[in-house]
C-alpha cells in the first residue's frame, strides 16, 4: 500500500525503545506562495528568518501566558515521554512530548535566558540553524495537538500550545504547511474547507432529502439558508458527502425533525472545523468564527448547534464566545453554542425520542473519545459530560456497547492519529503509525468482546479511521457516526406505520 511498514499490533501496549531520527523524513508539503500570502504570511522563507523567528517568539511569549510558563517550567521529569501516540507508534524520541517542546525551548534558552546565553551546552540550548528549522517543520507536524501529554504533566504543560506557537512562527517566516493553509483560505473565502459553493451544497442536500424520504417515507428536511429558523446548524463539511459522516448528518436531520424545531444550515458558514487553531493563529481563527456569527445574525436564528467534529467543538465550545461573542442576540435559555449530542441527549432525557434499538443489533459498538472533545471541551453542565453524553446516546440507540480499556478512553483517550492538521495524504506513514495505540485498544475489545464497530463524533477521526483501519486488518466501514446509530434506530413518529398498511392505503 505504501513504502513503509505498518506496525504490528501488540497484545499489551509496550513502551518502545528509542530509535533516533526514524521520522525525521516525515514532512508535509510546504504551502505555495499564493496560499501563504492569502493568509497574510510571507510567500517563502524570508532572508533574515532567524531574526524574524525570534521576534515572533517574543511576540507570542508576550501574548500567551501558556507559552511563557511552559517554556520555563519543564523539569524534564519524563512523565510525558511515553504518553504520545506518535512516540508509541514511531519510536522516534523527538516525538516524546518533552523532546518536541525542547525543539523550541532550546532556541528560547539560547537567545532569551541567562543560562542559555552563557552556558548553552550545560542547559541544552542551541543556535537557531537551518537544521533546527527542519526539525521544527518535521516534528511540529507530527503533533496532532491532542493534549494527551498535558493530562500527565505535573504542571499541565500542553505540547499543543507549543506546536501551535511553532507553526505560527514558521508561517511568519514563510514556511507554512500546504494542507492547513489552503484549507483556511477556502473556508475564509468560500465558507467551507472543501470549497463547496452554495449551488453544490443545495444540490447535495436536496439529494439527501430524496434519499431519506425514499428510505423512510417521511419528508425529513435538510434546509439551507432558511431565514427565521430557530436553529443554525454548523457542521463539518465532510458531513455533506463523506462516509460515514453523511449518515451522521441524516441523523441530525431526523432528530430535528422529531423535535419539531425549525432549523437551517448556512452556505456562508458551512464549516464547523476551524483550521486557524492548528496553525496557532488567533487572527485566522477569529475571522473564521466571525463567519458563523454573521450567518447567525443574517439568518435571524435563536440558537447555534454544532455537528459532530472534535477540534471544531473545541473552538466552538471553548473559544467561540471569546472570538466572536457576545452572543446576546440569541436565546439565553440555551448555551451558545450547543453540541448536537447535547441537543439529542436533552430530547432523550425528556423522553421525546423513540428508538427501536434492534435496528442496530447487527453491531457491537465501542466509542472512540475524540481528543479535543475529551480534553479541551465539555458537554452538558457537569465536568466529564463529554464522556457520558455520547455514551448515553449510543446506549439509547443500541443494545450492544462495550468500552475500550480505561487507559485508552476518557481523558486518557488516544488521538486517532490524524488530528491537528495532519489528515493529509503526504503524512500517511505518520497517520498509520500514530494510529497504532488506538488500534491496539480496539483490537482488545474486538477479540475479547466481539466488538464489530467503533463510533466517533469527529469528522477527522471518521476520515482517518476509514483510511487506517484496513492497514491493521480491520474493515474500513468499522467506523460509524454516533448520529448514524441514532438515525438507524430512531422511530419517526409520522412514518407510515408499516409496509403492509401503506400498501393497503395505497390500494384504497
Amino acid at each position, binding site marked *: 500500500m505504501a513504502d513503509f511498514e505498518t506496525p504490528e499490533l501488540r497484545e499489551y501496549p509496550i513502551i518502545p525503545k528509542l530509535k533516533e531520527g526514524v521520522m525525521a523524513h516525515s514532512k508535509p508539503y510546504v504551502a505555495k506562495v499564493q496560499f501563504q500570502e492569502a493568509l497574510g504570511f510571507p510567500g517563502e522563507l524570508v532572508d533574515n528568518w532567524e531574526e524574524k523567528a525570534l521576534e515572533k517568539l517574543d511576540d507570542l511569549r508576550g501574548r500567551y501566558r501558556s507559552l511563557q510558563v511552559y517554556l520555563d*517550567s519543564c523539569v524534564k521529569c519524563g512523565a510525558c515521554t511515553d504518553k504520545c501516540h506518535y512516540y508509541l507508534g514511531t519510536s522516534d524520541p523527538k516525538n516524546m512530548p518533552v523532546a518536541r517542546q525542547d525543539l523550541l525551548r532550546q532556541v528560547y534558552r539560547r537567545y532569551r535566558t541567562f543560562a542559555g546565553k552563557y552556558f548553552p551546552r550545560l542547559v541544552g540550548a542551541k543556535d537557531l540553524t537551518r537544521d533546527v528549522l527542519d526539525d521544527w517543520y518535521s516534528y511540529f507536524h507530527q503533533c496532532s495537538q491532542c493534549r494527551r501529554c498535558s493530562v500527565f504533566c505535573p504542571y499541565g504543560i500542553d505540547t499543543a500550545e507549543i506546536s501551535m506557537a511553532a507553526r505560527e512562527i514558521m508561517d511568519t517566516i514563510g514556511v507554512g504547511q500546504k494542507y492547513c493553509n489552503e484549507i483556511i483560505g477556502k473556508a475564509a473565502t468560500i465558507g467551507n474547507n472543501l470549497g463547496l459553493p452554495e449551488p453544490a451544497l443545495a444540490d447535495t442536500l436536496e439529494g439527501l432529502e430524496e434519499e431519506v424520504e425514499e428510505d423512510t417515507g417521511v419528508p425529513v428536511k435538510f434546509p439551507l439558508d432558511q431565514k427565521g429558523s430557530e436553529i443554525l446548524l454548523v457542521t463539518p463539511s465532510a458531513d455533506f458527502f463523506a462516509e460515514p459522516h453523511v449518515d451522521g448528518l441524516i441523523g441530525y436531520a431526523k432528530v430535528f425533525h422529531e423535535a419539531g424545531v425549525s432549523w437551517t444550515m448556512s452556505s456562508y458558514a458551512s464549516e464547523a472545523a476551524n483550521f486557524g487553531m492548528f496553525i496557532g493563529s488567533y487572527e485566522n481563527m477569529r475571522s473564521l468564527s466571525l463567519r458563523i456569527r454573521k450567518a447567525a445574525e443574517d439568518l435571524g436564528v435563536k440558537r447555534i448547534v454544532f455537528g459532530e467534529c472534535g477540534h471544531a467543538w473545541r473552538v466552538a465550545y471553548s473559544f467561540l464566545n471569546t472570538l466572536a461573542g457576545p452572543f446576546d442576540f440569541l436565546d439565553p435559555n440555551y448555551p451558545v453554542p450547543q453540541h448536537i449530542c447535547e441537543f439529542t441527549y436533552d430530547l432523550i432525557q425528556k423522553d421525546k425520542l423513540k428508538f427501536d434499538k434492534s435496528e442496530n443489533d447487527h453491531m457491537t459498538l465501542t466509542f472512540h473519545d475524540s481528543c479535543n472533545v475529551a480534553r479541551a471541551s*465539555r458537554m452538558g453542565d457537569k465536568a466529564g459530560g463529554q464522556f457520558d453524553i455520547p455514551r448515553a446516546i449510543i446506549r439509547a440507540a443500541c443494545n450492544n456497547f462495550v468500552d475500550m480499556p480505561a487507559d485508552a478512553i476518557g481523558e486518557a483517550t488516544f488521538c486517532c492519529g490524524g488530528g491537528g492538521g495532519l489528515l493529509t495524504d503526504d503524512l500517511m506513514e505518520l497517520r498509520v503509525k500514530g494510529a497504532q495505540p488506538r488500534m491496539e485498544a480496539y483490537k482488545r475489545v474486538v477479540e475479547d468482546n466481539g466488538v464489530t464497530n467503533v463510533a466517533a463524533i469527529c469528522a477527522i477521526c471518521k476520515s482517518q479511521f476509514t483510511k487506517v483501519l484496513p492497514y491493521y486488518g480491520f474493515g474500513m466501514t468499522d467506523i460509524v457516526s454516533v448520529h448514524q446509530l441514532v438515525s438507524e434506530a430512531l422511530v419517526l413518529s409520522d412514518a407510515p406505520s408499516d409496509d403492509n398498511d401503506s400498501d393497503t392505503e395505497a390500494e384504497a
Partner: protein
Amino acid sequence: MSALPVTYAILFYAATLLLVVGLVRKIVLYARTPAPLKIPTTPAPVSRSGVVLRMVHEVVLFTSLFKATKWTWLFGWLFHFGLLLVLLRHLRYFQAETWFWVDLIQPFGKYASYAMVIGLLGLFARRIFVDRVRYISAPSDYLMLLLLIAIGASGMLMTFVTHTDIVMVKGFFLGLLRFSIEPLPSDLLLLTHLTLVALLMIIFPISKLLHAPGVFFSPSRNQVDNPREKRHLAPWAAELEK
C-alpha cells in the same frame, strides 16, 4: 571581624537578593502576560472553588504525575515533602524564640532528610537508567540533582555524625536579619552546606526550578471551565474588535 563571616554575610545577602528579585520578576511577568483563550485540560472544574481544589491536589499530591508514572511520583513526592519538612525545621535558625510547632516538628524534620535524599537518588537513577529520561536530560538536569543531594548529605552529616556549633550558626543568621555580622563556625562541612544552599538560591530564578511558581500560573490547570457562560477576553484580543 574575621573575613569568614563577612564573606558569608555578603554571599547570603546577594543570594537572597537575586532569589527574590529574580522570582518577583518572573512572577510579575507570568501574572501580566494574558491568557487569551480558555484552555483548561478537561474535565476541569466549573467553578473557582473547584479550581482551588484542583490546584491543591496538584501541588500537594502531584495528582497528574501520579497518573503518569508511579516511580517518578514516589521519588518526586518523597523529595519534595522531605524538603518541605527540612526547610520548616530550619526556621529555628531565624527565630530568637521558636514557634512551638517548629519545635514540635524537629524530630520529623530530622528524619525527613532521609526521605529527601532517597527521593533524589531515585530521581537520579531514573535519569540514568530509563532511556527516555536519559535522552531528554541535559548536563544541568544531573547537576541540579547532585547539588540537592550534596546539600542534603552535608546537612545530614551535621545532624547525625559530626555536629557543628548550631548556637553560633543561629547567632549568625539572626544577626543577618538585623544587618549585623556575627561569628560563624569555620567548620568545613557547614561552610560547604551553606555555599551550596546559596548557589541553589542564586540559580533558582534562572533555572527549571521556575516550575515552583510556574505551576500556579499554568492555564491548563488554573482556569475555570466556563467559556460558554462567561466571555473571556484578553486586552490585546479586545483591541482586534475595535
